[in-house]
């Protein structure tokens, strides 16, 4: 059997499975059967996508197809190049556990019609996602893009009885459409130069555009796709929509769909506009600056949320900022012809896309389990869940550690490599660029610390200590399918972190055609060969361990040139295990030498623990709120009547309100301005038939006059 054809088979099988899922959702009669059939089709389709993506990345021939139509748009073509294959793999990797968990999540309380609709939409959505990344011409891309926007809107509205959910979904759709306008115009500008809708033609035509036009395309594509990704001025829909959707859809939204915004950016900026054409440095700096600000604002707001899923939504905004920072760094290095550094930055960007997808998916599935078990997402009502939901809690903690960049999990390697890459700013000759990059690096380091705070708070308040409400006290463990899904993702959190040298070669295959240089042997030095050359020192100090076990160059990562820093999460894990083992061994050996006494937990000598004695989520985040209050502009209202102050009777109330970012400073002024404009233009729609006839008359007259000219 020719294994190199497997990816192609898997790709088409995935598409076929999604279609099968649509059919089965409509035909099957039992609610449970519909759920399971739809989920299995998505899961197996995801598996196929994953195989296809990894296969193509590893060098197998890429599947592709072109469909000639009678439409004047040219052939509708699909083609998986390296970039598409990577994102296809991400889609597959995440949709698999999301689908499995939906079996358990959509328990037995939802009606047949809704489940049917859900199964249909789920498969259609995944189909559109795959088509977006596989698209090789503008029409397929845009059709799939719009389908994705619309379908995700429908899926967010799963609980459409709740007006809040409906509003959030609508907001998401509105901003997405706004972004689509930008994308559309960007494509059209390229099409004008190319004359054809195929991506090949666009790629060839881009260098012929003048710099102002290319910059316009850049800005339109960046903000257009950025609206979907959730970058700073356009992030307003994300914290509303992600919590409103059912949890596995939130996982899909946060882990996969916003990454398609990144895919679009990469496609435009690195593929079409990059390459041999020169990139001005300010493009990269714009992305870098917006990225770092997005990161900071995202994580700060994440710390002060009281809804568990909003914490995760703002954290997604933060991570998109990190990805943008990587992309910005890559473009900036590229502009100064430091292609090696640009390629490393590109690898880091892609690695973070993958990592964030994995751990954010896991976090949302965990939050979904919590909501499923307790019926609430409010941090003030959760607590003590670790004892009642040990598996869910464990996986959630793994994901929280991963997102806090704790080695040897996956968040560590991508964030560390990004910081290292940003530190290479000294290689750039222009001072202002150096300064901007250095400031971005500092902001990213700050947000890394605040991210730890945010996740210690979210995890600690929900899972540790004591239950703060009856719902939390009566929680039950998640169904088996959800646990399997979470375990799958947790495994990848560890695997992607411990074996970065397996992932980096695949990413290098993506960046090499886009950024012009393969940096694999630089980032992953070939220590497992017989002649390590420059890296002999590394081999001597143990870098040759496990040689031959894996088909990789080595297990050490050097993200920056000339040995400035070296790391190996693989050996680090080994060292950690050995150290822990050593400590346990020593403790076991010295056990007869000492006396052991088991006692109660020391808690200040109080007679018993009560939930009201534990940290509240508001108290834990209060220092951050106070320090950054210039950004939050929070409003605090506190009422304590005199009788209550003397402990006699009465009630002390404390209200804290933090409006979403830019709400009062940007959105409301813009919206009121726009509303004012439309109100003034209202006079056109007078309801008077005679006026409308007059309009027709005037327009016809104008057309005739213009024709004559």
């Amino acid at each position, binding site marked *: 059997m020719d294994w190199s054809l497997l990816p192609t088979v898997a790709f088409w099988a995935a598409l076929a499975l999604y279609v099968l899922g649509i059919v089965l959702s409509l035909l099957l009669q039992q609610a449970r059967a519909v759920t399971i059939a739809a989920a299995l089709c998505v899961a197996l389709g995801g598996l196929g996508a994953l195989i296809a993506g990894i296969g193509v990345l590893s060098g197998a021939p890429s599947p592709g197809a072109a469909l000639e139509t009678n439409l004047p748009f040219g052939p509708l073509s699909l083609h998986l190049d390296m970039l598409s294959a990577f994102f296809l793999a991400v889609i597959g990797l995440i949709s698999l556990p999301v689908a499995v968990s939906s079996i358990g999540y959509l328990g037995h309380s939802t009606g047949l019609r809704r489940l049917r609709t859900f199964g249909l939409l789920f498969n259609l959505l995944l189909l559109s996602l795959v088509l977006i990344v596989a698209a090789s011409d503008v029409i397929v891309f845009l059709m799939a893009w719009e389908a994705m926007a619309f379908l995700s809107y429908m899926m967010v509205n799963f609980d459409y009885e709740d007006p809040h959910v409906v509003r959030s979904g609508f907001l998401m759709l509105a901003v997405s459409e706004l972004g689509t306008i930008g994308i559309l115009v960007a494509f059209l500008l390229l099409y004008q130069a190319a004359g054809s809708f195929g991506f090949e033609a666009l790629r060839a035509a881009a260098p012929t555009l003048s710099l102002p036009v290319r910059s316009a395309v850049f800005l339109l594509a960046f903000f257009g796709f950025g609206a979907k990704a959730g970058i700073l001025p356009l992030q307003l829909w994300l914290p509303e929509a992600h919590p409103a959707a059912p949890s596995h859809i939130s996982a899909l939204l946060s882990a996969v769909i916003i990454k398609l915004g990144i895919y679009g950016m990469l496609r435009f900026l690195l593929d079409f506009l990059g390459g041999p054409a020169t990139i001005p440095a300010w493009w990269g700096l714009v992305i870098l600056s917006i990225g770092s600000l997005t990161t900071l604002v995202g994580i700060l707001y994440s710390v002060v949320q009281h809804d568990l899923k909003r914490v995760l939504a703002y954290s997604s905004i933060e991570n998109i900022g990190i990805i943008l920072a990587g992309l910005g760094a890559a473009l900036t290095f590229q502009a100064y012809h430091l292609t090696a550094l640009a390629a490393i930055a590109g690898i880091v960007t892609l690695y973070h896309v993958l990592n964030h997808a994995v751990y954010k998916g896991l976090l949302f599935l965990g939050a979904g389990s919590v909501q499923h078990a307790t019926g609430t997402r409010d941090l003030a009502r959760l607590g003590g869940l670790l004892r009642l939901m040990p598996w869910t809690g464990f996986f959630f903690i793994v994901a929280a550690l991963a997102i806090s960049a704790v080695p040897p999990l996956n968040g560590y390697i991508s964030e560390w490599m990004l910081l290292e890459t940003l530190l290479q700013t000294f290689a750039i000759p222009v001072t202002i660029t150096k300064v901007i990059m250095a400031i971005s690096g500092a902001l990213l380091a700050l947000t890394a610390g605040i991210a730890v705070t945010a996740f210690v708070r979210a995890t600690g308040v929900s899972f540790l200590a004591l239950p703060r409400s009856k719902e939390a006290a009566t929680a039950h463990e998640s169904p088996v399918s959800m646990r399997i899904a979470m375990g799958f993702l947790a495994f990848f959190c560890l695997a992607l972190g411990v074996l970065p040298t397996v992932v980096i070669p695949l990413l290098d295959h993506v960046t090499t055609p886009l950024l012009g240089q393969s940096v694999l042997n630089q980032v992953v030095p070939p220590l497992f060969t017989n002649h390590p050359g420059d890296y002999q020192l590394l081999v001597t100090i143990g870098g040759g361990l496990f040689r031959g076990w894996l088909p990789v160059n080595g297990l050490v990562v050097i993200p920056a040139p000339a040995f400035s820093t070296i790391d190996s999460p693989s050996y680090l894990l080994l060292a950690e295990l050995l150290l822990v083992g050593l400590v346990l061994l020593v403790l076991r050996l010295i056990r007869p030498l000492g*006396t052991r*006494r088991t*006692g*109660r937990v*020391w808690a*200040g*000598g*109080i*007679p018993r623990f009560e939930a009201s004695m534990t940290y509240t989520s508001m108290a834990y985040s209060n220092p951050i709120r106070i320090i950054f209050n210039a950004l939050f502009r929070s409003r605090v209202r506190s009422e304590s009547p005199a009788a209550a102050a003397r402990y006699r009777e009465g009630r002390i109330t404390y209200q804290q309100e933090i409006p979403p970012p830019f709400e009062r400073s940007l959105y409301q002024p813009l919206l009121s301005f726009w509303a004012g404009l439309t109100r003034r233009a209202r006079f056109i729609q007078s309801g008077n038939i005679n006026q409308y006839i007059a309009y027709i008359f005037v327009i016809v007259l104008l057309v005739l006059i213009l024709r004559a000219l």
Partner: protein
Amino acid sequence: MEDPLDVETRDAAEELKDRVQRLFRHSLHIRHVDAGSCNACESEIKLLLNPYYDIQRLGIFFTTSPRHADLLLVTGPVTRAMEDPLRQTYEAMPDPRLVVAVGACACSGGIFASSAFTRGGVGEVLPVDVFIPGCPPSPLTLIHGLLLALGRGEQRMKGRVQRVRSSRPLQMLSPSGGEKERY
């Protein structure tokens, strides 16, 4: 007359205790618990940290967590409400550990000894290593007591027998009713 309970007698347990106390010879961390005291003793204890008495020059420090503490310093007659927290604090301390009772109340219940709401001194609740009498004991008394606990000081209260002779001449007293002279 020899007193059978002369303090010079030591058994093996006492020897061991001495060795343990010497572990903390120059580095001691104290956790203080107020088991119902009137806070006069606390006022004297806090003077230990001022520049005049400065027990930190002797290697003695105060710590907040019993998990970090070597010595438990207790004031107050151990009221009912504080008995369990006091026990919890003691149990939270890792071995080796010492207990010092400060003040008349902690030694014996003091003026609250007959109250139904106190246990009558720390000795009723915990094994005490050093008793420091006083009401309140002055900071020098406290230093002497702490150094005694560390094996760096000498105990001068011999108990049981006190022999004091005044160096002044005595005046014969009339055995009945007559004038007395006070000395």
